[in-house]
């Protein structure tokens, strides 16, 4: 078995890295060691998963079994979907580690072993979640991921906000894990085995006998994964938590970790839970939850002034897009496989793209932090003059997340929009359902304009404008940080220009998971390297195709023409000062801060309900609330008053009395002693004498 050796080798590498970095205190040495280890790991995993997908095979392997104790085994199962996620993990892990090497120097206080071992643990657990096919070990890795990411969040534990965010994260995700454990216990009681296959069998029996319990299990699983993915209202913890970790770690959180929850949702609802009429209901619920978090999360992001917090809100919004695609797909995949397939592909493609540009954007925020010591958009400006390459990558990332062609967000958003609007043409769906799906599509079109607005705010206020004072010198950031950003930016461009590459990977992934009959790739998409065309029904004609290459080509021709035109006009050039109306101003006086952007729009979406202030549809501050409890409950929950103190007082008095026996003079004791002896002798004589 050649594949399994790749996998074990990469896992061993990660374990080795974890052990090594636990003993190295020096940041640079530790960073270099982990970079070397991670690059080997990423190489192995990329090689492994690409081979697996291209050869269209599946890896199944059982490491060990807990068989006599529990019907559970460490069962590795890697199909194309898992391989797709392994690719994502490998790319993100490599870039994140490369970025962290020099980036950690920005933190004066903490040492390397607060960071790298947990990062490796996070990598291990993410790989574990993706490759496992056993619910018990799935929960084990899930919990491992939560713990390691929590440790990364509180790695800067001197800060109060970090502890606060960490606490929220800990509680929220553990409540979610409790839901998952409850679901697994119920499932185990029916299936008597933790393997996904057995669970699927048990569920298909359950679906006929006990519909209510089946839906309850679905609800538990839904809440558990959606909380981790950060879908509102369950993902309330996310914007407080992600910004607290070091930027490279938050990049992995935003790029991969929250996507793994979507993976779990996808895996469970598509391959573990059998198809039934309930799938439609759950698809609808997933889509609605997605739209809700798109709308609220992104509008809330527009009102944020802190770069990483802004991106965290966008993480919520972008997960919403994926859930909209996946939900629409689940709703329609049985009745109309073409539409369902396009929606599912759109959702997963968005996930793939998102993991690239989200990691990139968090790394950009990290670069800003490295240079200026803050990510507050009101305090930084003009950074293009010291880090031009980072600025370019930030613009690429921002345009990708907004879905501007020809970057990669465009194709996936196109698929999601089209699939949700195409529901209008499906005859067997009810009017209300169609209306809701179409409104979702329109909301997501509107929200992508808002995404663009908030990222233009990020780019404009941090990179453009006058340069303010910096923490470090005026040199550019270290090359490792730049290279990792540039790699991700180039990936954004490539997957945008050749959308057929990720589309084919994703299509294979979906085909490998689902067990119902689905149309082949060539029936839906034109398999052409220059672009894609989409087909919504078996008899439709292709409506042309999206050819990004041709667009780029014509853009290049136009730009050449216009530059030639400008050169031909021979306009002279001169350097001048900025025109403020004739006056001189310092950069601080004339900077238009991030807070000032879109103020009228912010006012429009800020309001007050009762005592809760909403800023951008998101509650910004809660009033401190008090719960008045009846007196007797207070008494009961306070046993000190009526149980402990009275008893303790009694005992204390008793001991005080006993203590008094001992504070006599020695003569008294001798006297008492003699009296005692006399009494004893008298008693003895009395007894003997009879």
């Amino acid at each position, binding site marked *: 078995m050649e594949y399994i050796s790749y996998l074990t080798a990469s896992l061993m590498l990660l374990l080795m890295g974890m052990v090594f970095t636990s003993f190295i205190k020096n940041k640079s040495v530790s960073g270099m060691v982990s970079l070397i280890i991670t690059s080997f790991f990423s190489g192995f995993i990329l090689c492994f998963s690409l081979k697996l997908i291209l050869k269209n095979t599946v890896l199944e392997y059982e490491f060990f079994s807990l068989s006599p104790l529990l019907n559970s085994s460490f069962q590795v199962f890697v199909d194309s979907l898992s391989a797709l996620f392994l690719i994502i993990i490998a790319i993100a892990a490599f870039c994140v580690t490369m970025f962290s090497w020099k980036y950690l120097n920005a933190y004066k206080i903490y040492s390397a072993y607060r960071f790298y071992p947990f990062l490796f643990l996070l990598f291990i657990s993410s790989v574990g979640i993706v490759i496992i096919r056993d619910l018990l070990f799935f929960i084990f890795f899930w919990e491992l991921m939560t713990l390691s990411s929590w440790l990364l969040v509180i790695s800067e534990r001197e800060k109060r906000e970090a502890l606060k965010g960490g606490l929220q994260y800990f509680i929220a995700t553990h409540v979610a894990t409790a839901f998952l454990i409850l679901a697994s216990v119920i499932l185990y009681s029916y299936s008597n085995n933790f393997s996904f296959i057995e669970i699927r069998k048990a569920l298909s029996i359950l679906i006929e006998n006990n519909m209510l319990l089946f839906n309850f299990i679905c609800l538990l699983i839904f809440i558990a994964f959606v909380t981790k993915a950060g879908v509102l209202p369950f993902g309330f913890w996310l914007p407080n938590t992600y910004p607290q970790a070091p930027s490279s770690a938050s990049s992995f959180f935003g790029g991969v970790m929250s996507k793994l929850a979507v993976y779990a949702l996808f895996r469970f609802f598509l391959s573990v839970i059998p198809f039934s009429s309930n799938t439609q209901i759950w698809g609808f619920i997933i889509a609605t939850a997605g739209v809700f978090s798109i709308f609220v999360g992104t509008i809330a992001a527009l009102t944020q002034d802190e770069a990483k917090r802004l991106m965290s809100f966008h993480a919520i919004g972008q997960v919403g897009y994926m859930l909209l695609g996946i939900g629409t797909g689940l709703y329609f995949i049985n009745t109309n496989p073409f539409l369902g397939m396009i929606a599912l592909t759109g959702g997963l493609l968005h996930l793939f793209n998102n993991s690239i540009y989200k990691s990139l954007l968090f790394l950009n925020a990290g670069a800003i932090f490295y240079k200026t010591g803050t990510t507050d958009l009101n305090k930084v400006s003009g950074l293009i003059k010291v880090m031009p390459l980072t600025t370019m990558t930030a613009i690429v990332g921002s345009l990708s997340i907004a879905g501007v062609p020809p970057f990669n967000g465009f194709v996936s958003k196109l698929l999601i929009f089209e699939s949700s609007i195409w529901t209008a043409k499906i005859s067997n769906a009810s009017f209300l359902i169609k209306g809701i799906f179409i409104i979702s599509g329109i909301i997501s079109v509107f929200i992508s304009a808002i995404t663009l607005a908030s990222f233009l705010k990020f780019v404009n206020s941090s990179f453009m404008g006058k340069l303010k004072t910096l923490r470090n010198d005026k040199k550019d950031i270290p090359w490792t940080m730049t290279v990792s950003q540039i790699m991700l930016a180039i990936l954004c461009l490539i997957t945008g220009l050749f959308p057929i590459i990720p589309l084919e990977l994703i299509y294979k992934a979906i085909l490998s998971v689902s067990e119902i009959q689905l149309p082949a790739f060539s029936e839906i998409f034109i398999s052409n390297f220059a672009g894609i065309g989409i087909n919504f029904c078996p008899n439709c004609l292709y409506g042309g195709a999206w050819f990004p290459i041709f667009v780029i080509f014509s853009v290049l021709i136009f730009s050449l023409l216009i530059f030639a*035109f400008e050169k*031909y*006009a*021979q306009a*002279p050039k*001169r350097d*001048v*000062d900025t*025109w403020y109306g*004739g*006056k001189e101003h310092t950069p601080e006086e004339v900077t238009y801060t991030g807070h000032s952007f879109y103020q009228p729009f912010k006012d429009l979406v800020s309001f007050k309900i009762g005592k809760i202030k909403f800023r951008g549809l998101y509650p910004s501050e809660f009033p401190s609330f008090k719960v008045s409890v009846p007196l007797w409950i207070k008494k009961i929950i306070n046993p000190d008053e009526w149980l402990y103190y009275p008893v303790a007082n009694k005992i204390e008095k008793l001991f005080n009395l006993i203590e008094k026996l001992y504070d006599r003079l020695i003569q008294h004791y001798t006297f008492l002693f003699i009296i005692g002896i006399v009494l004893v002798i008298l008693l003895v004589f009395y007894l003997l004498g009879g």
Partner: protein
Amino acid sequence: MSLLKKLAQKAFKKSIWVFHVNTGACNGCDIELLDILTPYYDIERFGMKAVSSPRHADALVISGPVTRPTVDFVRKVYEATPEPKIVIALGSCATAGGIWFDSYNVIGGVDKIIPVNLYIPGCPPRPEAILFGIAQAVGMSKKKIKPIIAAKVES
């Protein structure tokens, strides 16, 4: 010199955009300048219009004597205007200081600070006088522009 450049220089005369600078005028000249935008005089028929940034301007219309606090501003606005540009001194004060020619707080005419191409005297100059001056500048009337810069405008 390319064809486009020649065309641009030809077009320069047909579209002169004006940026108005007040260096301490009594607002007499300013009102007269506004008057030429009204339907009665309508300067836009010569392709002229008032712009709000010196970056877009071809002509700087400066009204008022140059007072000491505004010296820097005048230099700055001259620098901020792209070449080719013409500077028009509007009114007696801008031409030579006017009745404040020997005031302690007044430098004098605009030409003491920056080179001036066209003088439109008068206190205030009538709108007809301003039109006449501008007609001279764009070549509709006989020119009385300083020779060195006239070459720049003409060619």
